[in-house]
């Protein structure tokens, strides 16, 4: 914690805020891509401390929020109707499917377990040879290595009752989709530090030069975020558009090559449906044919059609940064964490939930 406290130093924060204020000469809109950064911005009260010329736009960086309805429905179907122990990260449990959430399915008796590591799911598969164990493998590039490793471990152990329901989403294609959206107005990006820890910085060079947009790989502590904003603003004011690394204490230029090797042993890149946004080309991971017997999508031949989103939910516009949560007519009214119309109100990383939680809204 001592090390972490250095990144929450109030004097240093004040210094960065002063530097940002001195550097800004005109309005700029900066998108923080990752939901963890949104959470940190709101939790630490940073948005209100920034100069008025800086507008923070919240990006699509919550893997829970963008997991498609049909995949959640499929996970629920497996847990309820098949001889399956469904394992998931905690965030996924509250996200609504087209009818119920995994948490509601659990309350109705479905075998659903909250885990922190997919390797734990492999252990559960080993301990329950008469049950199928499915890990709901959600996440960005950050969680992909561990999910891939679980498949490799299950394969090595010769387990035939383990599979993953892969719902991975990739950040750079989503950033490109957001830039290309006619309605979005983004001057610069704080790229997601955790993702770059795995994948490195190289993926962002073509984006930055092609679209003339500064991209600063940024961490999650208050000082990280303030320094990241300062770096973006300096580039914008100097009309510079390059990739910089604020999170150098963690992120190496080439990323974690061992983790990348594990990812591409098990996964291949495919087009992916993003909840609220639609299909983004080459923006997801699918399990390779070599490991097809560990792919729950193939193992359980269930076809679930994509159900329509709630007609009053504007999650797509929220996740593309076109609208702020407060601008949604249903924010805090029909749409609350306990009765969410869409996923951004559910996940702890979701922009709507962050705004709701830290705005003092109270559910009665």
């Amino acid at each position, binding site marked *: *914690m*001592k090390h*972490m*406290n250095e990144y*929450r*130093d*109030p004097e240093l*924060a*004040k210094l960065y805020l002063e530097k940002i204020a001195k550097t800004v000469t005109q309005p700029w809109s900066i998108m923080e891509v990752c939901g*963890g950064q949104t959470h940190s911005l*709101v*939790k*630490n*009260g*940073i948005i*209100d*401390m920034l100069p008025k010329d800086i507008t923070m736009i919240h990006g699509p960086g919550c*893997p*829970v929020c963008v997991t498609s309805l049909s995949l959640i429905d499929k996970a629920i179907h497996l847990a309820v109707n098949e001889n399956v122990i469904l394992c998931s*990260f*905690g*965030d*996924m*449990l*509250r996200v609504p499917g087209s009818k119920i959430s995994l948490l509601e399915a659990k309350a109705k008796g479905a075998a659903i*377990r*909250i*885990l*922190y590591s997919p390797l*734990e799911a492999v252990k559960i598969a080993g301990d329950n040879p008469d049950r199928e164990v499915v890990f709901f493998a*959600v*996440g*960005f590039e*950050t*969680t992909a290595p561990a999910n891939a490793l679980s498949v490799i471990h299950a394969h090595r152990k010769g387990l035939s009752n383990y599979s993953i329901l892969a719902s991975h989403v990739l950040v750079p294609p989503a950033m490109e989709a957001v830039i290309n959206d006619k309605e979005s107005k983004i001057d610069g990006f704080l790229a997601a530090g*955790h993702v770059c820890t795995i994948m490195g910085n190289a993926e962002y060079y073509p984006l930055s030069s092609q679209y003339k947009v500064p991209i600063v790989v940024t961490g999650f502590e*208050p*000082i990280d975020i303030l320094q990241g904003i300062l770096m973006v603003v300096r580039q914008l004011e100097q009309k510079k558009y390059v990739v910089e690394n604020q999170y150098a204490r963690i992120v190496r230029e080439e990323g974690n090559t061992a983790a990348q090797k594990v990812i591409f042993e098990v996964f291949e890149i495919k087009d992916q449906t993003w909840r609220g946004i639609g299909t983004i080309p080459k923006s997801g991971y699918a399990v390779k044919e070599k490991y097809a017997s560990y792919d729950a999508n193939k193992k359980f031949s269930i076809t679930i059609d994509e159900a329509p989103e709630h007609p009053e939910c504007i999650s797509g516009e929220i996740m593309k940064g076109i609208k702020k949560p407060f601008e949604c007519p249903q924010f805090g009214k029909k749409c*609350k*964490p*306990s009765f969410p119309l869409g996923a951004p109100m559910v*996940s*702890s*990383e979701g922009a709507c939930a962050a705004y*709701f*939680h*830290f*705005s*003092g*809204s*109270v*559910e009665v």
Partner: protein
Amino acid sequence: MPDSNKLRMQLTCPMPKLDFDIITLGHGSGGVLTNKLLDSGVFDLLTNDILEERHDGAIINMNEKIAFSTDSFLVSPIFFPGGNIGELAVNGTVNDLAMCGAVPKYLSLSFILEEGLKMTEFWEVLVAIKFACENANVKVVTGDTKVVEKGKGDKIFINTSGIGNVHPKANIGKTRIQIGDKIIVSGNIATHGMAIMSIREGLEFESTIQSDTTNLNHTIINLIEQFGNDIHLLTDPTRGGIATVLKEIALTSDFGVDIFQRDLPMDDQVASACELLGIDPLYVANEGLFLSFVDASIANSFLEVLQNDKNGKNAKIIGSVVDTHPNQVILESSIGGKRVVSMLPGEQLPRIC
């Protein structure tokens, strides 16, 4: 509070010779087996004159103003670092009474046991109850035992109710809170919840975080005797953590609350575990902890007395009652930003990344 080694040593002493090594449905039948279970040592262990009457209820003398409280305990797992469900069940109700400014005196003790529970585990819980009662100076005077089929419980559920005399100097209630009151937390926050989480299936992580479960009644009565009327509210932020308690108080009043992140006392290991799991310590359950709303004029003396008590050595003033934002709890972050503290919409779930 007895440590676990002491408990295990004691187990070799009062452990009765039992005919069964597990709880069976028959132990809840009310017949021979139930009586055999109780006679095998339960009554001896928790003995006192009123309990020994073995009547349908307890007949006690309570001529003064009394406080009455009840709580049910469903912790899983039932044994956790720093304690078990037995002492939790005693301390929980004792502390609820203490928060009313009462001297806890008598408890009821009801077990719902799951068929198949090991008799040794039941006994370890009972011994913990005995020690917790001795430490708090309370007596179990009536009780009940039921057994549910295997799979329909979670080893042991315990309900305790308790009564005690309200201390004559105590004048405690939400309506007594005033603008300017200082809010004092008696120790490190989030300890109990993270101790439980550190061993919960799927979240296990290496740690030495011990639950802070303990009885607070002697600490509280000492404070009431010294500061009496200037203590406006005492409350223990168990489930929902300190954020939920403060928000509840603000919502039911016409004032606001300011708290300061830099002043929140927290053990380093607890803070690290919260960071790792993405859990906000403001919402994590506490046990051996209480919040006091006291008159600003006595805040520093109150803090000094509390810090000299074994249950208050990490106590701190964490905030104050203000008139600027009624119904709202505002937290000043470590970097000086401000944000609203809300109630938790549901259970805190670990985040994905």
